[in-house]
């Protein structure tokens, strides 16, 4: 909520506009009371007042509209800065963060949108709920002290009723956000695997299960609303009672006296104006509650101080690498992913890590990419401890191709240029050629300008992998990290790509995780990992 407070100053304009609108409405009501008195046979206004009331109505309407636009603008600025900070933070956390893609998307889009009501409605409404009624009480006190007292007492009862019902609503609201997150995570998860569900004839069952989950969500939501609606019912009761009491009081007063009843009528007619800001507050209050639920999830992410790591002064042309007794553990796993791993790699050397799946081949690469941090030991590049670098700086040293490469929504060209956007067209074409992307792109109707969707629809796994390799070629970095780079390639393509990889390796320090060093056909050192022992050999 610290973010929230920082944004507080932006609502001064909407609050001022709201107060001005309240004043207009009070004046409007006064004129109406005066005209009403005239109709009831007392001396008073005429069509002049009627015209004035019309003018006031126009003025208050335009003030109200300006206020709404100002509120919207305040909310926009607040959301934009929070969303950007949250996105940067999620990227900083990287793959170590256990949240799924769907959950992160919900945080970024829905949770931040849920904060909108907080800034654009609740903050101004909360200020106006105190200021406007106070203003009206002062004005009414000049007309009739008792009426002002009744309004004051009733006005004070509103926050009491809200507090009584609001506490329950806050707790329930947090539960509801939990369920919403799980529900949306479940939707994305199932939609991504729609073909798997269809394959096993389970799509209809899953649809039913989603229905049950939605039903559970509905029950939870209704539980929140039951309380939320109770507080607005309490507000209705207070408003109705105030109106009834004042009508009774002034109705009795009116009969025997024949003095000008304008002030008495004003006291009755002002009741809806008095309760309007409180009503708006009540509506916004529950918006604030659901925003709090969202804020509670966002706050731990946003309130972390930014990483204090060092920056890289320049990218060294050659990289020497030392692992010394490095240990890595993933949370919730009994066995360490890497146990006391030690090796050294001279500049320009190629190292192949082999071993069964799960032996920690990928973990070595993840450490060098800053996706994970060692719990013990030291990793040094050119003699410098890499854990002191910011992870993003560490990544500037390397080109990386993972097991499952992602193709981003956009053209093939954009996907290759991702690695180095400032690269020239010939450089990009050379990289595409070297990774044998051109071998299939040339046959596509739009060549490198072919759109590939999220997850790379339309391209086979091998083709997607070649695009990822093209990125590595384009990146031109001193350290190259490849994780099973040819796992999804057929032998023909693999031979071509391997020849290209060999060229990529020349003059660079390279680590390749692979299940078969022989298959690689590269010369270099081989370390076999199986969690227990290290076997070193040399091939090529």
């Amino acid at each position, binding site marked *: 909520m610290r973010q929230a407070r920082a944004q507080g100053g932006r609502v001064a304009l909407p609050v001022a506009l709201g107060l001005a609108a309240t004043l207009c409405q009070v004046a409007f009501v006064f004129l*109406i009371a005066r*005209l*009403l008195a005239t109709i009831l046979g007392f001396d008073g206004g*005429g069509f002049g007042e*009627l015209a004035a009331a019309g003018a006031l109505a126009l003025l208050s*309407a335009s003030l109200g509209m300006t206020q*709404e636009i100002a509120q919207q603008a305040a909310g*926009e600025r607040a959301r934009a800065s929070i969303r950007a900070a949250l*996105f*940067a933070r999620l*990227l900083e956390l990287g793959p170590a963060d*256990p949240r*799924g*893609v*769907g959950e992160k*998307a919900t945080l970024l*889009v*829905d949770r931040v949108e849920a904060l909108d009501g907080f800034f654009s409605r609740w903050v101004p409404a909360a200020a106006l709920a105190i200021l406007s009624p106070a203003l009206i009480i002062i004005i009414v006190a000049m007309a009739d002290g008792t009426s002002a007292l009744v309004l004051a007492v009733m006005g004070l009862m509103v926050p009491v009723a809200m507090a009584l019902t609001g506490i329950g609503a806050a707790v329930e609201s947090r539960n509801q956000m939990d369920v919403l997150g799980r529900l949306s995570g479940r939707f*994305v*998860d199932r*939609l991504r*695997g*729609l*073909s798997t569900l269809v394959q096993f*004839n389970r*799509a209809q069952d899953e649809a039913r299960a989603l*229905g049950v989950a*939605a039903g559970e969500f509905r029950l939870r939501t*209704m539980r929140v609303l039951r309380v939320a*609606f*109770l507080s*607005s*019912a309490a507000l*209705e*009761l207070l408003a109705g*009672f105030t*109106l*009834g009491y004042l009508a*009774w009081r*002034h*109705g009795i007063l*009116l009969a025997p006296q024949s003095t000008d009843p304008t002030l008495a009528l004003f006291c009755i007619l002002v009741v809806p104006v008095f309760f309007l800001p409180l009503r708006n507050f009540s509506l916004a209050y529950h918006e604030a509650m659901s925003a709090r639920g969202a804020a509670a999830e966002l706050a731990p992410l946003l309130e972390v101080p930014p990483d204090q790591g060092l920056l890289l002064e320049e990218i060294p042309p050659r990289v020497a690498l030392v692992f010394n007794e490095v240990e890595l553990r993933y949370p919730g796993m009994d066995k360490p992913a890497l146990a006391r791993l030690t090796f050294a790699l001279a500049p320009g050397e190629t190292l192949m890590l*082999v071993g*069964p799946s799960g032996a920690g081949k990928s973990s070595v690469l993840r450490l060098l990419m*800053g996706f994970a941090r060692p719990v013990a030991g030291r990793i040094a590049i050119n003699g410098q401890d890499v854990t002191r670098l910011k992870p993003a700086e560490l*990544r500037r040293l390397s080109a990386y191709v993972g097991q*499952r490469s*992602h193709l981003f929504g956009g053209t093939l060209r954009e996907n290759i240029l991702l*690695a180095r956007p400032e690269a020239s067209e010939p450089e990009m074409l050379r990289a595409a050629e070297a990774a044998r992307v051109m071998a299939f792109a040339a*046959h596509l109707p739009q060549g490198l300008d072919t759109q590939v969707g*999220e*997850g790379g629809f339309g391209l*086979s*796994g*091998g083709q997607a992998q070649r695009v*990822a390799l093209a990125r590595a070629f384009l990146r031109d970095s001193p350290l190259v990290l490849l994780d*099973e780079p040819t*796992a999804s390639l057929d*032998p023909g393509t693999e031979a071509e790509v391997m020849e290209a990889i060999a060229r990529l390796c020349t003059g660079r320090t390279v680590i390749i995780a692979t299940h*078969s060093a022989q298959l690689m056909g590269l010369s270099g050192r081989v370390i076999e990992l199986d969690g227990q022992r290290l076997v070193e050999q040399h091939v090529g």
Partner: protein
Amino acid sequence: MWADLARILRLWAPRRKALILGLFIGMLSALSGVALLALAGKGVAAGAGGVGLVGVAALVWLRPVVVLRPLLRWWERMASHAGAFQALADTRVWFFSRLAERMPGGIGLRGSGDLLGRVISDVEALDRLYLGGLMPAAAALAVVAAIAILLGAEPGLMALLVLPLGLALILPLMLAPAATRAAQRAAEERGGLRAAAVDPIAGLEDTLAANAEGRALARLTRADANLMAAQRELSLRSAAAGTAGTLLTQLAVLAALGWGLSSGAGGAAMAVLALFLAIAAAEALGLIPRAGALMAGAAASARRLFEAADTRAPVEEPANPAPLPGGNELVLSGVTFGWRPEAAPILENLDFTLHAGERVAILGPSGAGKSSLAALLLKLAAPQSGTITLGGTEIAKLTGSDLRQRIICLSQDARLFDVSIAENLRLAAAEAPDAALWRALAKAGVAEFVRSLPDGLETRCGEGGSRFSGGEARRIALARALLPPAAILILDEPTVGLDAEAERAFMATLATATEGRSLLIITHELTGAEPLDRVLRLAGGRLLPAAG
């Protein structure tokens, strides 16, 4: 717009009773508000006119109304929300099953980030149709009708009030088309924002590896700015409509006063009543012009939902499905196929027979059409020409679900869901006992790994099996494919991500794992350990016997 909304209402038909109950209570609640102010007005008029008793009588009636109104109000909101949520849950389920029918091969080019946006925010936006559109409209209609009846004795006065109020009532219809366009844009921009958020996170490792954080953030900020510009236009329209509604109800108040001023003492009582009624109407009608903007938003969401749901199914289900044949021989004759009609076909005039119980491998370079062949056999795509028969019956004449009982495929994109390992396995065979699950895991060479997990079969897999390494996840998916007793098994790159030893071990156990079934392995290379009857090579759209 109206067609989309009408179709949504038809989807909601089973919940008609709950939805109509909500409308009815909403009207009662609005009328109680009218009663409250009408009685107050009568009291004031009578009191001022010196008719003390009548005034007091009116005020006596105020008391129950003061209590009744909040109760009705609460009930109205509970009933309408409960009805709306039920209807929305139905819509979600409908949309999901519909996509399963229309996109059985997966979401493909429609990014799932965008699709998620469709389901969550668009379905939720539909509640505005009922809660923000129909509910206020019903309440306002009831109020205007009540006012017309109460003021029936003075037609001139009635006209003065009902005209502006009626205008406020139909205002949303006039503003709707422009608001629909604005809402459509806002919904599209929201989808764009979601895509800008999801894409870099789905490919998080690649984003980070390319140091593309700044570019991803810039894209997100741009998408955010676009969304806000669209939302601003929408809220400007809605604010303008709201202001117009307020002005029209205030016009009714002024009209009542004007009528009173000009009619003199005789009309005083009616004028006071009319004034209080106009004030009462303000609350119900003030919401109405905004309802137009809200309904436009709901219509834009409905349009996007239906666009996705109405995608043509890649293969039509037969109108009169043939029964599953007894035989299990798969025969492809003269099959030509390409994903894009304008591009050269991937498979050309292909002939192939998989005899019952036979084990065949199809080799080929990536992109040669191996996975397309699997898609054709599963009816996820239809050949442009040629026929595919199973046991002598064309598979085009079989229903997809019947066919899938006979043919199980481990596809390249087989996904583990974020539930336990056991639940993932039971997707393939709901009733399978634990022992059967362990047998399947053992055949896929992953039983030992699962046993080593603290929660064993109950370990959650994470989205897409993210809790496990690529090889482990692949083997669990393999175990799932081995579980059901389908006669034909297609394994598309079954060992991708497995190390050489595990791959060899797995291939060696395939003989026992697939005893008595036909087996089609689609792969780019063989280990030599496979118990195969035939090996074919797919090249240039044709199948040739593999040399050596």
